[in-house]
Each structure stands twice: as structure tokens, then as C-alpha cells.
């Protein structure tokens, strides 16, 4: 027997074995309807598309739409008044057109009206789920202006635009909501959410997906797990988030963020800002009210705060710039660098240094295992109290300042190089030095105490900060489409008409 014959025999045997193997695998492993169903609830394989349309007259005015779907998208747009138009696109996953058509004929579009409520869906539940077929039902709906939409969808993208209000529950795909005149309630699981131009309040719950909001006029309450959040031009924001970064721009009200395991960045908050997080940094820019930040294992940076600032941080530092109100900080294992504190400060730090460059008002600083450097820049008018264990204290005295001085070094030296100081040294000590007296005409108390050296030096007086505290640059979101507020129910349809289904030609798809 020649080599060619042997080779051909091997090819045929291998081919037969492959076919048998494929057949057995398909028969014994449930991989989906006549093809392959993969994760995420999508069907793959040869498919055929069929279409059905229906329309139903409703009473003039806003309509209440109740839309239910699974394994397919829901797309709602604004249509003509007094009529709801629905197009159902049926995508059937079958190997042949004949089989697909047979199944498609059994998939019905159902549009019913009851006391002003228009229910839109299919008979998917009656057909049941079987392993030998799969199909998607995509609903495209033209709703009368100012309709209220209630959507329940699984395994399909939901797109909603130009309605009066929306209540959406979706899963395993994303949700897009645009131009809603009043309130929006959204619950999405395993998919992202994109919400733009909402005229009312927003309540959102999301699991496993990113969330983006923009132009939300009312307040927004967000509960998010495993996804990042980005907002632009919103009302007051209340956010609870477990695993994802938060970026908020232009918040027209209070910002409250309770985050875990990620970073928070907010700019232009017109109200107060309250942020709690861990294992991520916090950055605040231009806050109109008080700011309160609590971070574990993360850096804190804040600038241009019109109110006071209260911060707790650990295992990283705090950096402040231009704060108008009083500052209160507690930092463990991290430094504090602050510039332009106009309302005084109370600072407790351990494990690193404190630098206050430009401040007014009373200052009280305690540092453990670190040093303190205080440079008021402007004439001292409030009490300055600073102590450092295992470190030194430096104070720069602007010209023209007057105060009562008490400076003590437990193990080092006290150096005071300022004109106009009348003070006496305590000469009878075995260790350290103490200096007590009056600078100029006296005034507030300056008490400095350190294990290391205490240094007092004169500097020319300047402004507390190089620039004034900036206000938040918030602008009101653009108006959402005006419409009357949605009611709980609408009047019955004046002349309800039966649905008029119409089938169209099948089109082969490829996926």
C-alpha cells in the first residue's frame, strides 16, 4: 500500500473521529440551544430576525407604561401623542430558517391597556426556557410625550429617553437614561448605568458596573458596589460605595460619600462635603461649606474650603491649602502640610512632622515623634501653642507681632532671634532651656515646648495666603424637558384599539 493511501485512510479516520466527538460533546454537554450560550445570558450561533409591530391608542396626555422583557433590549423614545407604537424584533437562534420561523411564529408581542396603564411584553414566559432553542426579544417603543415608564428587564440593554419619570430594574446589561423631566429610580445589577439630564431626584442602586451621571437637577442617592462613579453637574449627592473610585464635579448641594477601598475626588461642591473612605486618597477642591474627611491608609488633600475642615487620617499625610474656617486634624503616621489657614487650627499628629505655612487665629499643635514648623506669615493675633515630643519646634514671627512668650526645650536649646523681645532665661536647669517674656506690647499667648530645640526667628509680615479662598464654580444643570408631574394613574383610554401585529421578512444574522 502506498504512502498516499495510508495518509488518506488516516485523514478519513481522523475526520470521522472528530465528527463523532463533536456529536457526543453536543449531545452530552449542555452548551446551549443548537449552538452555544455563553456567559452573560447572550446567545451565539446562527440566528434569524423577524419583526412584529403593534400600536395602541391611549387617552390624550401622559401614559403609564409597564414594560417587561428578558433576553433582549428595551428602547423607549418619544413618539406621537395618543398612541403607543411597539416594534418587536425577534432574534431566533436556530441552524435553519424554517425552524427559526416556526419558533418565531410562536413568539407574540402583547400590548394591553387597562385604566390608563399600557402593558408591553411578550409571551416568553409561556414558551419557557429549553435547551434546544434560544431567542431574543428586542422591544422598540414610541411613547406619547410625558409618559411614565416602568421597566423590568433582564439580560438586555435598556435605553430610555424623553419621558416624564422612570422606574427601571435591569440586570446583566447596561442602562442608559436621558432627558427625564422628573424623578428616576434605577436598580441595575451586572451592568453599567449612564444617566443624563434628570429634572427631579435620582435614586440609584448598582452592582458590578460603572455609573456615570450628568446634569441631575435634584438630589441623588446612590448605592453602588464594585464600580466606579463619575458625576458632573448634579444636585446634592449621597453616595455609598464599596469598591470603586468616586469622581464628582460641580455638586449643587451637600456631598456625602461613604466609600470603602477606593479614592474620592470632588471639585466645586457648593454645600458641605463629608467623605469617609479607606485604602484610597481623598481630594477636595473648592468646597462651599464645611468639609469633614476620615481616611484610613490614604492621603488627604483639600484646597479652597470656605467652611471649616475636620480631618482624621492614618498611614498617610494631610495637605491643606486655603481654608477659611477652623481646622481640626488628627493624623497618625502621617504628616501635615497646610498653607493659608484663615480660621486657626487644632492639630494632633504622631509619627511625622507638621508644617503650617500661613495661618491666622488660634493654633494648637501637638506632635509626637515629629517636629512642628509654624510660619504665620501675618501678624500673630491669636494664641499659638505648640508641643513636640522627640522633635523640635520652629516659629517664624512676622514683624509687628506682639505676644506673651513661654518657650521651653527639655533637652535642647531655645533660640530667639527677634527684635523687641523682653524675656528671661531660666538658668538653673541641668537639662534644656526655658525662655519667658513679652514680645512688643504683648497680647496673645505663644507657648512652645519641645524635647528638641525651640527656634524663634523674625520674618517680614505678609498675607496669610498668596491668593484668596476660591468659591465653588457650580452652575445649575440645563433644564430637563418640561412636563407636568407624573400622576399615579391616568384616565382610561378614550378609544382603545386592538393591537395590530404585522410580520416582516426574516433576515439571517451572524454572531
Amino acid at each position: 500500500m502506498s504512502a498516499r493511501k495510508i495518509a488518506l485512510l488516516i485523514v478519513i479516520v481522523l475526520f470521522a473521529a472528530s465528527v463523532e466527538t463533536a456529536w457526543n460533546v453536543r449531545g452530552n454537554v449542555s452548551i446551549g440551544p443548537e449552538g452555544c450560550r455563553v456567559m452573560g445570558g447572550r446567545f451565539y450561533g446562527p440566528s434569524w430576525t423577524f419583526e412584529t409591530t403593534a400600536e395602541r391608542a391611549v387617552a390624550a396626555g401622559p401614559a403609564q407604561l409597564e414594560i417587561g422583557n428578558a433576553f433582549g433590549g428595551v428602547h423607549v423614545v418619544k413618539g406621537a401623542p395618543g398612541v403607543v407604537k411597539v416594534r418587536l424584533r425577534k432574534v431566533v437562534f436556530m441552524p435553519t430558517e424554517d425552524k427559526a420561523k416556526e419558533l418565531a411564529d410562536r413568539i407574540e408581542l402583547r400590548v394591553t391597556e387597562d385604566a390608563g396603564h399600557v402593558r408591553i411584553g411578550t409571551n416568553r414566559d409561556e414558551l419557557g426556557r429549553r435547551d434546544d432553542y434560544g431567542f431574543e426579544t428586542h422591544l422598540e417603543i414610541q411613547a406619547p410625550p410625558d409618559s411614565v415608564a416602568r421597566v423590568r428587564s433582564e439580560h438586555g440593554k435598556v435605553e430610555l429617553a424623553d419621558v416624564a419619570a422612570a422606574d427601571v430594574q435591569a440586570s446583566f446589561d447596561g442602562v442608559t437614561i436621558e432627558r427625564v423631566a422628573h424623578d428616576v429610580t434605577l436598580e441595575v445589577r451586572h451592568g453599567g448605568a449612564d444617566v443624563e439630564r434628570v429634572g427631579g431626584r435620582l435614586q440609584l442602586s448598582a452592582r458590578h458596573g460603572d455609573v456615570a451621571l450628568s446634569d441631575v437637577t435634584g438630589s441623588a442617592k446612590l448605592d453602588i458596589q464594585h464600580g466606579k462613579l463619575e458625576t458632573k453637574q448634579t444636585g446634592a449627592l449621597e453616595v455609598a460605595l464599596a469598591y470603586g473610585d468616586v469622581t464628582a464635579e460641580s455638586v449643587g448641594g451637600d456631598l456625602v460619600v461613604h466609600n470603602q477601598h477606593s479614592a474620592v475626588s470632588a471639585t466645586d461642591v457648593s454645600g458641605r462635603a463629608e467623605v469617609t473612605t479607606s485604602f484610597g486618597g481623598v481630594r477636595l477642591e473648592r468646597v462651599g461649606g464645611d468639609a469633614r474627611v476620615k481616611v484610613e491608609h490614604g492621603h488627604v488633600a483639600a484646597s479652597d474650603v470656605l467652611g471649616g475642615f475636620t480631618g482624621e487620617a492614618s498611614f498617610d499625610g494631610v495637605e491643606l491649602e486655603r481654608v477659611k474656617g477652623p481646622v481640626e486634624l488628627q493624623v497618625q503616621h502621617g504628616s501635615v502640610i497646610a498653607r493659608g489657614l484663615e480660621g486657626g487650627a487644632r492639630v494632633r499628629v504622631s509619627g511625622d512632622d507638621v508644617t503650617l505655612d500661613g495661618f491666622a487665629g488660634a493654633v494648637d499643635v501637638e506632635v509626637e515623634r515629629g517636629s512642628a514648623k509654624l510660619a504665620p506669615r501675618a501678624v500673630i493675633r491669636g494664641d499659638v501653642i505648640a508641643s513636640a515630643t522627640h522633635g523640635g519646634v520652629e516659629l517664624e514671627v512676622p514683624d509687628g507681632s506682639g505676644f506673651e512668650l513661654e518657650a521651653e526645650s527639655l533637652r535642647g536649646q531655645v533660640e530667639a532671634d527677634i527684635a523687641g523681645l523682653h524675656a528671661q532665661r531660666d538658668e538653673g536647669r541641668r537639662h534644656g532651656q526655658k525662655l519667658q517674656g513679652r514680645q512688643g506690647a504683648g497680647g496673645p499667648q505663644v507657648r512652645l515646648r519641645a524635647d528638641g530645640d525651640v527656634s524663634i526667628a523674625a520674618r517680614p509680615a505678609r498675607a496669610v495666603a498668596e491668593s484668596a479662598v476660591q468659591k465653588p464654580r457650580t452652575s445649575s444643570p440645563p433644564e430637563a424637558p418640561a412636563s407636568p408631574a407624573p400622576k399615579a394613574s391616568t384616565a382610561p383610554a378614550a378609544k382603545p384599539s386592538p393591537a395590530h401585529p404585522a410580520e416582516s421578512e426574516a433576515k439571517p444574522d451572524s454572531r
Partner: protein
Amino acid sequence: MSRSGFSPEGVTFGVCLVALGVLGTLANLGKLELLPLLRTYWPLSLVLWGALELVDLTLRRSSRGRS
């Protein structure tokens, strides 16, 4: 190459390739299901090959008889 002028295995291989291509195209067009068809009818390739070998043998014998 046999003395009869054609190679049974070459013809078999070519015919099988043509058949496989035609069936694959029809399956993609949704006219038939490929896998059950192949599973049922693949032994026909052996029948075709065997028949062609018999024809080749017959042709060679008759050729030897004439010479």
C-alpha cells in the same frame, strides 16, 4: 500513480473536499444541519474510495491483457 491514468485516493480526496465545501456553504445558508449529516454519511467516502480502487484494478488488468 497507477498505470490506468488516475489515482483512486486522489479522486476520493478531491470529491470529499468538494462535498465538504458544498455542505458547509449550505449549512451556513441555513439550508441543512452539517453535523448530523456528516455523522451519518461520512462512511460513503470509504465506499467511494473502495469502488474507485476496484475500477482501477479492473482497468489495470484489462490493460495487461491487451499488452
